[in-house]
């Protein structure tokens, strides 16, 4: 189950390319992008081992990685489902019905916000404004934005992800945005 925490050569090359963007000695700047890559590669979350590995790659102290990883809301510090359904709940999404969307998802998947379905497929997360207020209510899954949600639309989205059965990451290249 648990694979070795180590990037393959291709990913290492990508990390080095990112580091090159910054001046000599400022490789810590690569921390956020590299954590995104690590999260996508190692089961969608950042384990202490993953974070220590990233620290060693960037030649910084592990605590510097812990400090950063725990600050930003997109990094998961605990195991999560393959598809994290992040439903926006701030003003415009709320006023256009996000609470109903969340309730519907909770009922449909039989889990509460913050929980992961038993099959490990879905995690529901309620999040703050994702900059998609014009398409309220909305949810994000991986790199994809799903806007102007209705309960039927939500059903379709969930079914499609279930059929696809793949882990969704922010870094996905094959995102499809329903804008």
């Amino acid at each position: 189950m648990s694979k070795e925490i180590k990037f393959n050569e291709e990913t290492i090359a990508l990390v080095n390319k990112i580091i090159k963007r910054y001046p000599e000695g400022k490789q810590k700047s690569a921390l956020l992008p590299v954590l995104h890559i690590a999260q996508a590669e190692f089961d969608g979350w950042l384990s202490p081992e993953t974070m220590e590995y990233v620290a060693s790659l960037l030649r910084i102290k592990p605590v510097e990685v812990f400090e950063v990883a725990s600050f930003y809301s997109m990094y998961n510090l605990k195991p999560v489902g393959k598809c994290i359904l992040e439903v926006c709940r701030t003003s415009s999404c709320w006023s256009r019905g996000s609470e109903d969307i969340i309730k519907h998802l909770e009922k449909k998947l039989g889990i509460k916000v913050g929980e992961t379905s038993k099959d490990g497929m879905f995690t529901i997360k309620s999040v703050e404004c994702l900059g998609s207020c014009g398409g309220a209510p909305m949810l994000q899954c991986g790199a994809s934005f799903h806007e102007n949600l209705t309960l039927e639309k939500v059903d379709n989205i969930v079914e499609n992800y279930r059929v696809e059965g793949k882990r969704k990451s922010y870094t996905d290249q094959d995102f499809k945005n329903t804008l």
Partner: protein
Amino acid sequence: MGKKILLEHINVPGIKSLDVYRQNGGYASVEKALKTMAPDVIVEEVKKSGLRGRGGAGFPTGMKWSFLAKPEGVERYLVVNADESEPGTFKDRYLMEKIPHILIEGMITSSFALGAKTSCIYIRGEYFYVSRILEAAIEEAYAAGLLGKNILGTNFSHDIFVQVGAGAYICGEETALLESLEGKRGNPRIKPPFPAVAGLYGCPTVVNNVETIASVPYIVMNGGDDYAKIGIGRSTGTKLISASGHINKPGVYEIEMGITVEDFIYSEEYCGGILNGKKLKAVVAGGSSVPILPADLILKTEKGEPRLMSYESLSDGGFATGTMLGSGGFMVYDETTSIVKNLYTFARFYHHESCGQCSPCREGTGWMEKILHRIVEGHGKHGDTDLLWDIQRKIEGNTICPLGDAAAWPVASAIRHFRAEFEEYINHPERIKEFKHLQELVS
């Protein structure tokens, strides 16, 4: 139709690509600036244009540029703030996604004016897919000789890269953004020094919003005076407004500053009126941080003049009866909306996004959320409204960065204009499900 500067070509098929963008006049400002203008002249033109920062603060861009320290042998940076996270705001995403080259063009021209060899777009992590679009556009620009060494055969060389954030509203604050770009927690720095003196890696840095930089090509091509003629008074040019909430046509609109708020809400060209024919209750005109105004005060100033979409008109009356243009995040609420519940979503937001460095914001935002939560749940206590008022007052102005103010203002304005609704919640918790009767309570 009002003047369009940023979205003029938005519906041209293929405008995302460099070729189509260039066929529509794109990158002409790079050509003109690099080959015929001195950097200082461009800064002068931007000053003349009256362009003000489009991220929310509205600080004159030309003046910000002229503050940039220029010590010999030290790198200078331009950092584009694409960490668009202010609730109600989604214009930068729209612009970058639909017409990415306008930003790249603006960055090259602006960097030339500032003498920056490297510039960067810091984009919020949730917009990962937009970063792909920008990176593709940057690649095209490199291939066309618009980036890299000796751009268009001139002596000017420039590199651009895109950096993604990872979920933190606070990184929209420019010094928090720079911290984040250095691979740290997004904790705002204590100022002074300002980024113009010590910014990224301690080097002089200008941080500008996406829309601000995207406006520079027009100014370079047409001159600052021409730009200054658009708009009204000190609110020159056009502004992207993100319209959302209870309206028929949510979306991003480019307006010439000076149109009336009424026209913006009700005309078919813009929001198309209130959803389902309902009545307007309130508007947050410039992103969640700015004061909410009830219908009568957003449509007309206290003096009875029509309220205009401009920095000055929206702030007419100060915080007592006015608000701010902010980032242009225009959120509309119909007569059935609970202002208290809406405020709770804002308070929850600021509590979630406080970085935790300074005590008033760290402790105060959570406290306000908790009080509002008990009020909306029907467990409000007598005196809670006054307590909220006092807490926001003790946060405002006493924090390291403007997040404290941003958390305080929505609370203050909701109480100022809708106090009766708070009292209704507290005194009649059994009625909290019926929002309809709340409309008569507007004080």
